């Protein structure tokens, strides 16, 4: 953790002074981050690499945001404070995570309520409904929903995994009995596609489902079923929502409509192209050409100025975080803990893959954020809670 903070300090030294004028706030954040890791329950050993990578990634994200949108960077600092405080505050609850299993229907209910709220009151941004506005505050319910879904799935699957695993794929009755709630999950995912028109969110939820289901039951047919359901729904969306079709067109033919539908992704491509292997250097690139760069394309801005090497390094940091989280899953003695850790790791991993792949033009870009990196309060808070949870799960009694 100290190492991560040291690197973060050097990273901040790059930021022009006038942009982040509250140096003391940065220092305070460093202390909070350190306190978070140092003040831990006695007699436990935890994997400190997990919070350290989160802090490091946030710092890198912050210096990029400070460069492309200084006012957002100041706000991001405040969000980071809130996220850290919440992560510390939620620590004790995460330590007694087994209690959370009791409220599994609370989680699924909460996510359904949030989902309905978005469908009813959601703000439409670029054709997708992802945001809810409460006064001046905007937040993305998906960030909470994804955590709730993991909590529910872990608890539910921990109880029923054996039965589902034993059920023969073709036995409708046996499957229907226990898979019912899971179908609700699939339904939610598809519903998000239909009512909120966001393919990325739907893909993320379905991927989390599939990964947890597979770990719990090793039933590959359910994974294939999930993918098939998603494929059909996505196909339907492409043909019924012009916005989805436009995004796909912009992805397939980025140069066809350079000043229209393809503008944003094209500018991101130019940014990446300008970056090359070593990048243009911090502050020397022109990421400002990319519309909504602080939210959708922070990673493109980073890659322009730090190059493919910088990008691959960040990619590697995310991978280490995910693999460490999966290692936590492997160490857990109980199925519930294992599924929780797997779910949280998958959430992080798939979200990163979906957004990075979108930025790198591997597939069409979707509206979800890059954890720790993108500007966004709800995203930061949710992902810090996620990391705090994983960190708590990594606890082992010292001998």
């Amino acid at each position, binding site marked *: 953790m100290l190492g991560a903070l040291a690197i973060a300090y050097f990273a901040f030294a790059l930021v022009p002074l006038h942009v982040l004028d509250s140096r003391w706030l940065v220092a305070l954040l460093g202390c909070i981050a350190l306190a978070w890791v140092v003040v831990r329950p006695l007699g436990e050993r935890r994997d400190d690499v997990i919070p350290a990578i989160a802090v490091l990634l946030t710092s890198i994200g912050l210096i990029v945001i400070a460069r492309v949108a200084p006012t957002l960077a100041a706000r991001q600092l405040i969000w980071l404070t809130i996220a850290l405080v919440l992560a510390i505050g939620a620590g004790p609850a995460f330590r007694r995570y087994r209690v959370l299993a009791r409220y599994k229907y609370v989680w699924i209910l909460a996510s359904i309520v949030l989902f309905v709220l978005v469908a009813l009151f959601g703000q439409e941004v670029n054709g997708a409904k992802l945001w809810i506005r409460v006064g001046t505050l905007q937040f993305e319910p998906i960030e909470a929903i994804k955590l709730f879904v993991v909590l529910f799935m872990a608890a539910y699957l921990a109880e029923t995994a054996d039965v589902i695993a034993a059920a023969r794929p073709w036995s409708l009755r046996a499957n229907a009995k226990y898979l019912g709630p899971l179908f609700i999950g699939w339904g939610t995912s598809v519903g998000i596609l239909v009512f909120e028109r966001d393919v990325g969110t739907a893909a993320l939820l379905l991927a989390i489902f599939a*990964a947890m289901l*597979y*770990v*719990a039951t*090793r039933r590959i047919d359910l994974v294939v079923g999930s993918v098939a359901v998603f494929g059909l729904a996505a196909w339907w969306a492409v043909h019924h929502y012009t916005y989805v079709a436009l995004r796909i067109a912009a992805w397939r033919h980025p*140069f066809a409509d*350079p*000043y229209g539908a393809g503008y944003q992704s*094209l*500018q991101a*491509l*130019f940014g*990446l*192209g*300008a*970056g*090359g*292997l*070593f*990048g*243009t*250097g*911090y*502050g*020397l690139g*022109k990421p400002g*050409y990319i519309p909504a760069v602080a939210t959708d394309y922070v990673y493109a801005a980073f*890659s322009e100025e730090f*190059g*493919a090497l910088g*990008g*691959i390094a960040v*990619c*590697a940091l*995310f*991978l280490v975080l*995910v*693999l460490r989280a*999966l290692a936590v*899953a*492997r160490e857990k003695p109980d*199925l519930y803990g*294992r599924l929780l850790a*797997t779910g949280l*790791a*998958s959430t992080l*991993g798939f979200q990163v*893959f979906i957004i*990075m*792949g979108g930025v*790198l*033009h*591997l597939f069409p870009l979707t509206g979800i954020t890059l954890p720790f990196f993108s500007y966004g309060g709800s995203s930061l808070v949710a992902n810090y809670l996620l990391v705090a949870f994983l960190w708590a799960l990594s606890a082992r009694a010292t001998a």
Partner: protein
Amino acid sequence: MTNASIQAVWRLFAGLFLVLALRQFYVQVVAAPQIAARPYNPRLRLLEAYRGRILAADGSVLAQTVGGKRTYPMGPALAQTVGYLSSRYGAAGLEAAFDNALQPADTNGDPAAQLAQIGAAFAGRQAVSHGADVVTTLDPAIETALASELGDHARGAGVVLDARSGAVLAIASVPTFDPNDFDRIFPTLRDDPSSPLLNRAIDGLYPPGSTWKIFTASAALDSGTVAMDATFDDPGYFQIGDYVVHDNEGEATGTQDLTGAFALSSNVDFAQIALKVGADQWEAYARRWGIGDSFDFQLPAERDRMPGTNELYPGILAQLAFGQASLLVPPLRVALLGATIAGNGSEPRPFIVREVVGAGGTTTTAPATLAQPISAETAENVKKMMVAVVERGTGTPAALPNVTVAGKTGTATNPGVAHSWFVCFAPADAPRIVVAVIVENGGYGADVAAPIARSVMRVALGRVKS
């Protein structure tokens, strides 16, 4: 119990992130050059802000980028030569020919340049690479004189050379256009039947008319076919087979020596001289002058068109003698005819860019010789005849007080009114300036082109001191 499936998820993520890393490398390193070169890339326009300038010999600006816009202070006078730079219509002239030098170094996908840039940033410097400045040999005063003289005519061109080096001092082509307003006027220019985009001075192909008698006389004297004191009889016409040669500048010059035939521009006499020279020697001299060869010029120039070996029948040869038949040359070639006589028989290589001044150093163009087609003695004799043209022949309108001008008129027959030509150099004893002028369908060389050449010569002699 679930270790194996967690392991599978572990492998899945390792694989997915490997795909991301490979993709990142591909987009940013492998595909980057193609991506960056797309015309919609706003970064290219940024680079243009640092594009180098094009300068005249005295350092005055011919093209520079101000506030993101390329401006051309000389405007229409040098429109085709300096050229234009348009994001929509590309580039032309020096802007195109020296684009690589003018363009700032593009560090896209170039790891070494990027490392240097990062190093400079750490050292507290902003490493902005500027494009090189292209310094031409053009003289703004001579250029203005040439362009304004030609500007009185619908179509035409002119070249002014430094007789000692082959440096282009001025070059102009009419009709012309304002390169400062290029994007707006391009559609009109493209559809204009008089082709204002064409640089007639180097890319216009014309019959050289009687200016070509410089070549004919040189070949005749240099090969020893005709002596200076030989006499010729011109009754006003001369029949070769079915073809009849007429004089079209002076009529029936009667009995003349070579100088008289040259000064009065007798087609009849020169047709006979060409026949004496013969096809073989004619071809040999064409090769020695490099007729039809590249000028090795810094701008794309058209090559001369000369009838091939198997076409040199007597009737054709007789017409070639006074620059007709299917002989076509750009005005730059006619200027080089004059420069070769002025240069004691050595043909200079024309050049318009003197040096390219970049961050990495300066590249200088050294004057060079294209060929030595005739002896100094022959050149001296032809020079005497050219002096006679201006003193007492067809070229008297080109005479200047206090300086001896050597010249040759041309009246090139073509569909419509003849093209008016004049080529001259001065001072005759130590030539500094060569001027070649054509006015399309202008009529007699003496009437239109010669006075233009005279005005330009006067300005040029005042600008270029010995």
